[in-house]
């Protein structure tokens, strides 16, 4: 059958599934072990480290192959790969262009103990079985083959918008965060921004004609410093998540393991009302959420049928805008019983931390009830409740002078 332009054609027929494909396929029933080398940017040495570890495993007697290696023309990387057997690439024709991709069926037929697969976030050319390389890796792992792979932090879906805003460059190839979450080990390859820039200037990352463009765009020291911080935080979060899950599995509290992921990540909720002073509380809560790397919800419990004044309507609109710019979620619940509604929403959202302003002085019989913070702590054991002070009412004597 003739191929038409635009119709992807694999250079050889699609492979059968591992069982159908042949006799050498490892199907032990155990999933392979995935180790991901993550870094803040290209050039920090992820691929290099992956290859070094591949050699070490080979010397230890394991059957190691390189499933896919992207050297990007780096001599050092190509040199270190010598001595490791490589699985030939799959050739795909797309719009009359020959594209090389990883040959998953060939890896499965070869059935090594360990496979090195570079660039986990790569998007495959049309015509390859899976659209994304991480899906190829899943298939290799399912066949019981261990995998070492590499990833830059900006490819994580949840960080993509933030990094685009930071660097001005949208990274198109992303992977769901869950892929990294499923990795058995995440290894951070760290390098200071200064050292990375030295490597770039020395031509160790890109060819000479691309160095200036890189320095003027992505490889700015402030970008790299921020990316490094993001990478460090991300790996710290992964390590924390794995530690808690490991501690829980097999313990007498094994049943808690299912709840562990929810308990690991902090989630803040700020209790708001539509009046101007609430924005201060939202900003404080947002700062706290940034420091904790947590999601932020804003909750307003509205009395059923409550009418808003014109001022309150304006404050609510301003609150919505602020929430949107900060990346927080504004929730509005109708209830006659605010503590019950807050507790219900906190449970539903997995809140670990509540921030609220000082309550208005109670009047009448309401004076007999415990304060809202105390009622929340009784209803939500294990959730921190923080009452935020109004800093503007502090003595102005404490204020540092403004800049001259």
């Amino acid at each position: 059958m003739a191929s038409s332009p635009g119709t992807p054609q694999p250079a050889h027929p699609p492979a059968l599934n591992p069982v159908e494909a042949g006799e050498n396929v490892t199907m032990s029933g155990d999933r392979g072990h995935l180790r991901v080398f993550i870094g803040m940017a290209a050039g920090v040495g992820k691929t290099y480290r992956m290859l070094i570890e591949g050699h070490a495993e080979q010397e230890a007697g394991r059957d190691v192959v390189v499933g896919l290696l992207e050297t990007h023309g780096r001599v050092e990387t190509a040199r270190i790969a010598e001595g490791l057997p490589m699985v030939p690439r799959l050739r795909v024709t797309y719009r009359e262009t020959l594209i090389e991709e990883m040959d998953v069926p060939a890896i499965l037929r070869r059935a090594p103990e360990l496979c090195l697969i570079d660039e986990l976030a790569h998007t495959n050319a049309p015509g390859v079985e899976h659209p994304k390389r991480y899906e190829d890796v899943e298939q290799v792992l399912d066949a019981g083959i261990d995998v070492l792979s590499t990833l830059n932090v900006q490819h994580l879906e949840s960080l993509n918008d933030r990094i685009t805003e930071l660097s001005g460059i949208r990274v198109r190839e992303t992977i769901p965060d869950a892929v990294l979450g499923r990795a058995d080990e995440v290894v951070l390859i760290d390098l200071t921004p200064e050292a990375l820039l030295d490597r770039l200037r020395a031509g160790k990352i890109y060819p000479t004609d691309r160095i200036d463009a890189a320095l003027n765009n992505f490889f700015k020291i402030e970008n790299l410093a921020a990316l490094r911080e993001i990478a460090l935080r991300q790996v710290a979060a992964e390590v924390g998540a794995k530690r808690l899950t490991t501690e829980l599995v097999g313990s007498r509290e094994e049943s808690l393991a299912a709840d562990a992921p929810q308990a690991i990540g902090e989630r803040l909720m700020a209790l708001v009302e539509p009046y101007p002073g609430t924005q201060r509380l939202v900003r404080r809560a947002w700062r706290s959420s940034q420091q904790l790397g947590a999601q932020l919800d804003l909750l307003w419990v509205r009395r059923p049928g409550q009418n808003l004044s014109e001022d309150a309507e304006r404050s609510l609109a301003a609150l919505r805008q602020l929430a949107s710019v900060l990346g927080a979620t504004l929730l509005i619940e109708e209830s006659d019983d605010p503590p019950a509604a807050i507790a219900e929403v906190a449970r539903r959202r997995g809140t670990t931390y509540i921030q609220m302003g000082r309550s208005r002085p109670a009047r009448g019989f309401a004076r007999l009830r415990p304060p809202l913070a105390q009622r929340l702590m009784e209803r939500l054991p294990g959730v921190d409740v923080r009452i935020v002070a109004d800093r503007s009412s502090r003595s102005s004597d404490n204020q540092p002078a403004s800049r001259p």
Partner: protein
Amino acid sequence: MSSALVAIIAVAAILIGLAVGYWVPSHRRLAASNRPRPVRNILLPFTGDEISRRAFEAAVRLAKAENATIMPAFLARVPMNLPLESALPVQCASGMPLLEAIEQRVSSQGLPVDSRVGRGRSARDALRHLLEAEHFDRIIVSADEDPRAGLSYEDLRWLLERVPAEILILRPAPEDTRRISATALNGHT
């Protein structure tokens, strides 16, 4: 007999208590409603991580004279490769502390303050969205900002031509480089 008297006294005390309880808050509400309310809104837009001290002081002087609310507004710029509704945490990391610092300074003067955040493809676009959503009686901007960082002269001309509000543009004063920045923040973190 005596027990009936005690009961009558108790009921009377409860009724008096309820009446006082009703009257006092309503009296307070009435008193609050009689208080002079701010009738004017003064917008004080900014884009970077500091604002001119002169613009701030002008806003405070006018607000005091006119019993107005000062509305500092952080104008965030959305890069073209992001949707307009995107969260902007990196810009907010510098803009929010400054907003907080301005609020603290305004509050310490005993003036009402009500912050805003505008978002657009440029500072002018963010300001336009803000002005479409709400009415402001007066806008105070400083013309001594670096045009790359804040409102350019073109933006100021656009403000004068298009915006139906009183606009106060402060002339650049090279000798007066005083600024208010987030470093003036009183314990934000």
